[in-house]
Every structure is written in structure tokens, then in C-alpha cells.
């Protein structure tokens, strides 16, 4: 086992990794920017090294600085956390070339999954379902009507060069197709200077459901069930739960079995997440995150598996030591993300924490680097706390979440706690009846009210 690990990250995730290390009897080295000298994980770490000024490019993304810090402190391994360099295959390779162990997947797997097109090709080869569509741009000579019919309406016409919703048109039936094609083509031409378009099956109200994977790279692979992360605003997840209120045991087992088969073929090592859109009983792969995720605690709680501990054990050469049949799903867990943002306008709110009191009692976990007197720097992302609650049933879990949100005090800055307090009153949410567009509407309606 490792004696000393460098944590190449900041905030709550750095603290999370520090805790896992301490519980394994491993010493920690915190690297930090000048803006984070007083950060919780820096104060708790056995050693700390200042690696640069506040700007991430000069500190948390500064590969030479991080590798130098690893060298001068003599660590065995580097954990990249979430974000920053966690999915940088070059960094993973350099870590290994410098003689440190990389606590993460094979760089090759990071690389292939980091490229959207390569990833899609790869998982199709591995037998996972993706959003069906044209294999490439559709030209004037293609039988678009036949293709659209084979995909099943509604279909989406999408600019090849596009993004941000521009050059995207939905055809709800054959009668819309021509118009959608010509509109998308002219928008594509106007915005991207290229009128090539793709055709894709359109999902009107999908859920975002992802599967937590853990492999040892030695043949052992399990999944920890799914997380429902449909509650998003501008593609930022705000609340995640496991299991999904939309899935039944058969669907879970079926997608789980396909995913295990794929990951076993790939020989995947460490923690990873397969993200899917889910609609009408079907899963459509969107991407794979080859790292730990912010919302990993909900999977930990319903399975009793400590993902960070397992990442470290596996990186040290350990095997999983158990199979899918040993993974028991028990109860329900919800994570709410508490951001330093105004709960209605979402304007960031850095500043000094004048009051801090975390909720306690049974079934409550708080992963946060906040403390009274801490000053949140304006330089980094706004996630300041994850409140995770557990209950034997979803209803117990919801009631506990409500009670914990009543207790949580973060003073001196604005946070999204009031938004979560409103969310927990919304009948749709309580009924588990939401898709990836629901939260945007909820927030908009809320602001109009």
C-alpha cells in the first residue's frame, strides 16, 4: 500500500480524498494555489506545497508544478480528484513516466472516452446503446426520409459544425422533415459556414441516468447501480439520487449487465461513469467520465462501498475481491449540491463565511470544506458543500433531507440552500416525476412567481 499520496485538487473533493487516505493510514500532501493557503484540506494534510498563484492554469492545471511538488515531497501516488487534470490523459502518462502511481484509469481509456466521436464509436463496438442517427452528414442525395422513418419520429436535424442549440431543428413527423432540413442547413451555413447536417433520434423528455462503474483492471468489474442526475440547470447538476425513481429492477439489471460486459471487454480500471439519456424504457449512451464524480457519495451509501478507498486500493495493485452478486442495493440516497450562488439569479457569491453549522444526526453526511471564518476565493467553481442523506425508502430520505436543510446554516454568502428548500416542496420532485428540462422550468417559474 502507498505511504504518501499527493492530492492534485482543491475544495471538498480534496478533503474527501484526504479522508480516505487517513482512513487507510496513508499520509497526504496537499498542493494549493496562494488563494487556498487557508483551505481545509491544506490545513488537515500532513504536508502542503504552494504550487502557484490563484489562476488555475498556473496552479491546479500546472503540470510541471504538480510533478515537482510530488518529487520534492517524495509521494508514491497522485490522486487527481474531479475536474482540473482528472481527465487529462497526458498528465496521467507523465505521472507514470515520473515514477508515480496514477490513481485513475489507463491513460488510453481516458483518451478514447475524452473524444466524443471516438467514445461513441468505442461503446458501439462494446455493445452499448447510443442515440441512433445518420453515421455521418446527410447529403442531398441521401434518402433522408427513409433514414428518419427508420430512426422513428421525432428526429433532430443537427448542424455538423454546431453547438449551443444553433442549427438544430426537430421534425415531429415526415411532413416536417423537409422544412427542418432546409432551416437547419441555412442556420448551419449562417452560423458555422458549413451546411452539413446530421440526423439523430430526438428525445423530448429524457432523464439523465448514469451508471457507476468500478474495475480493477485485472478482470474484476462491478457496477454500483445508477444515479438519476436529471435535475440540471444549464447542464449543471443540482441534485442527484440513487436509485432512480424511474427505473425498475429489471431495467437496472439489464443495463448493468450490458455495461459490465462492455467494461470487462475494455479492461477498465478504477472508478468511472457511463452517462445515458433514458426515455421510454431505453438507454442511450452519451459519454463516459473516466474519473470519480462529484455525486459518488449517493452510490457509496446505497452499496456500502467506499469508492475513493477502492480507487486507492486498486491503484496499489489490489483486486476487487468481490463480484456483482455481492453488491447489495439498500435504501435510498440523495445528494444536494450547495453552491455559493444566489438561489434565484445564480450569481456567484464568494466571500467570508460568517456562520457555519452543518446538520447532524442519523442518515446525514456532509462533504464540505467550509468552516466559520473561511473566505471563499472568487477564482474557482462555486460548489461549497454536498449534503447527502440516506433513508430506508425514498420517502424517508426526502423527509430527512427536508429536516437536514432546516438545520443547515451557511452565513455571510448566498447559497442554493433556499432553492433546495423550495425544491423539496415541489410535488413533481416528490413524485420522482421529472426529466432533464424540469429544473429549468421550475427555476423559471419560481423567479416569475
Amino acid at each position, binding site marked *: 500500500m502507498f505511504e504518501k499520496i499527493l492530492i492534485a485538487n482543491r475544495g471538498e473533493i480534496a478533503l474527501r480524498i484526504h479522508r480516505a487516505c487517513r482512513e487507510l493510514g496513508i499520509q497526504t500532501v496537499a*498542493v494549493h494555489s*496562494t488563494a487556498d493557503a*487557508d483551505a*481545509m484540506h491544506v*490545513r*488537515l494534510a500532513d504536508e502542503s*506545497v*504552494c*504550487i*502557484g*498563484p490563484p489562476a488555475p492554469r498556473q*496552479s491546479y492545471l500546472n503540470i*510541471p*508544478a*504538480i*510533478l*515537482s*511538488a510530488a*518529487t*520534492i*515531497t517524495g509521494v508514491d501516488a497522485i490522486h487527481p480528484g474531479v475536474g482540473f487534470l482528472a481527465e487529462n490523459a497526458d498528465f496521467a502518462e507523465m505521472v507514470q513516466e515520473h515514477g508515480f502511481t496514477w490513481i485513475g484509469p489507463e491513460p488510453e481509456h481516458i483518451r478514447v472516452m475524452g473524444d466524443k466521436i471516438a467514445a461513441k464509436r468505442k461503446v458501439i463496438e462494446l455493445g452499448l446503446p447510443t442515440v441512433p442517427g445518420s453515421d455521418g452528414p446527410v447529403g442531398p442525395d441521401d434518402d433522408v426520409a427513409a433514414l428518419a422513418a427508420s430512426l422513428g419520429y421525432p428526429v433532430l436535424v443537427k448542424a455538423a459544425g454546431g453547438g449551443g442549440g444553433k442549427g438544430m431543428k426537430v421534425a415531429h413527423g415526415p411532413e416536417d422533415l423537409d422544412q427542418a432540413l432546409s432551416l437547419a442547413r441555412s442556420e448551419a451555413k449562417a452560423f458555422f459556414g458549413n451546411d452539413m447536417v446530421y440526423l439523430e433520434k430526438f428525445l423530448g423528455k429524457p432523464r439523465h441516468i448514469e451508471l457507476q462503474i468500478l474495475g480493477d483492471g485485472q478482470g474484476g468489474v462491478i457496477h454500483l447501480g445508477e444515479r438519476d442526475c436529471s435535475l440540471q440547470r444549464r447542464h449543471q447538476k443540482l441534485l442527484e439520487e440513487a436509485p432512480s425513481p424511474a427505473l425498475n429492477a429489471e431495467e437496472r439489471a439489464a443495463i448493468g449487465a450490458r455495461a459490465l460486459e462492455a467494461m470487462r471487454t475494455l479492461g477498465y480500471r478504477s472508478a468511472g461513469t457511463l452517462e445515458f439519456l433514458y426515455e421510454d424504457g431505453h438507454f442511450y449512451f452519451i459519454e463516459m467520465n473516466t474519473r470519480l464524480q462529484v455525486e459518488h457519495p449517493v452510490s457509496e451509501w446505497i452499496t456500502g462501498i467506499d469508492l475513493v478507498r477502492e480507487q486507492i486500493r486498486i491503484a496499489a495493485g489490489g483486486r476487487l475481491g468481490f463480484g456483482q452478486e455481492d453488491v447489495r442495493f439498500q435504501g435510498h440516497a440523495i445528494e444536494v449540491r450547495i453552491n455559493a450562488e444566489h438561489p434565484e439569479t445564480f450569481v456567484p457569491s464568494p466571500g467570508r463565511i460568517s456562520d457555519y453549522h452543518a446538520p447532524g444526526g442519523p442518515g446525514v453526511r456532509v462533504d464540505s470544506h467550509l*468552516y*466559520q*471564518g*473561511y473566505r471563499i476565493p472568487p477564482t474557482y467553481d462555486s460548489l461549497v458543500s454536498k449534503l447527502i442523506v440516506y433513508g430506508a425508502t425514498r420517502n424517508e430520505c426526502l423527509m430527512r433531507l427536508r429536516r437536514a436543510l432546516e438545520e443547515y446554516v451557511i452565513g455571510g454568502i448566498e447559497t442554493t440552500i433556499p432553492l433546495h428548500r423550495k425544491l423539496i416542496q415541489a410535488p413533481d420532485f416528490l413524485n420522482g416525476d421529472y426529466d432533464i428540462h424540469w429544473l429549468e422550468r421550475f427555476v423559471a417559474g419560481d423567479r416569475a412567481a
Partner: protein
Amino acid sequence: MPKFSLDAALVRQLAGLLDETGLTEIEYATSDVRVRVVRQGVPISVTAPLAPPPNAGAPAATPAEQAASNPDTVTSPMVGTAYLSPEPGARPFVNIGDTVRQGQTLLIIEAMKVMNPLPAPKSGVVRQIFVRDGQPVEFGEPLICVE
């Protein structure tokens, strides 16, 4: 009688300096004007999440912090290992009391197996050397004082 004219920008600037320097009080006077700004004792709770570090409660900055805030101090631009001489056993680049020219190499920082010479930012006399040969240094760590 001349109208009192408050220079609010000056107060703000001093408040900013308090933040930057970690001071709790600044008094600034010229023949015409005297300004004093105070920020009461940074609450102890700033150091809450840990048992107070050994120097907790000490109102003064640590020597390293003092050195780092001295404009004559050259701090490390990177994480690495500091070397005071070009190779093992050789004479050091500079000694205390030496006069150096701007641009003259003061020491070397090794990072990623690359030797990075650190040039003197200005001409002057070497007053202090804060690091030992072969010592690991972090970003912003005081290295040498050239007055």
C-alpha cells in the same frame, strides 16, 4: 474656511492594503492629511477547523511571511529544488554581502529535471539567503534578499 474634502479613494486603497498585507491597522500622514484605518482582530475562528497551529494567536506575521512581503525579497517563481551553486561542490552563485548586477544568476531552481536560473531582478547587495543548497521550495517561498 476650506471645505473638508474626504478622499474616499484613499481610504479604500488603505483598506485594500490591510487585506493584502494582513495588517490590522494603518496610519498614514503627510503634512496635510492624516488617515488611520483599523480592522479589528481577525476573529480567531478563522483557524477553527483545526487545533490551533503552534503559532496561532501570534499577532505578528511569521518571519517567512514578513520576508515574502518585503519588496526586496526574491521569491520562488515555481515549485522545485533550490541550488545555490552551478554544480555540487562548486562555489555558490552569490554570498551574503556580494554586490550583484540586475540579471545576474542568484541561484537555480530545478523543476521537472530542468535547471531554471533565477536572475537578480535589480542590482544591489545580497543581504540574506533564506534557503539551503538542495532545499525543496514552494511557489512564493522567500529565497534571497537583494537591497
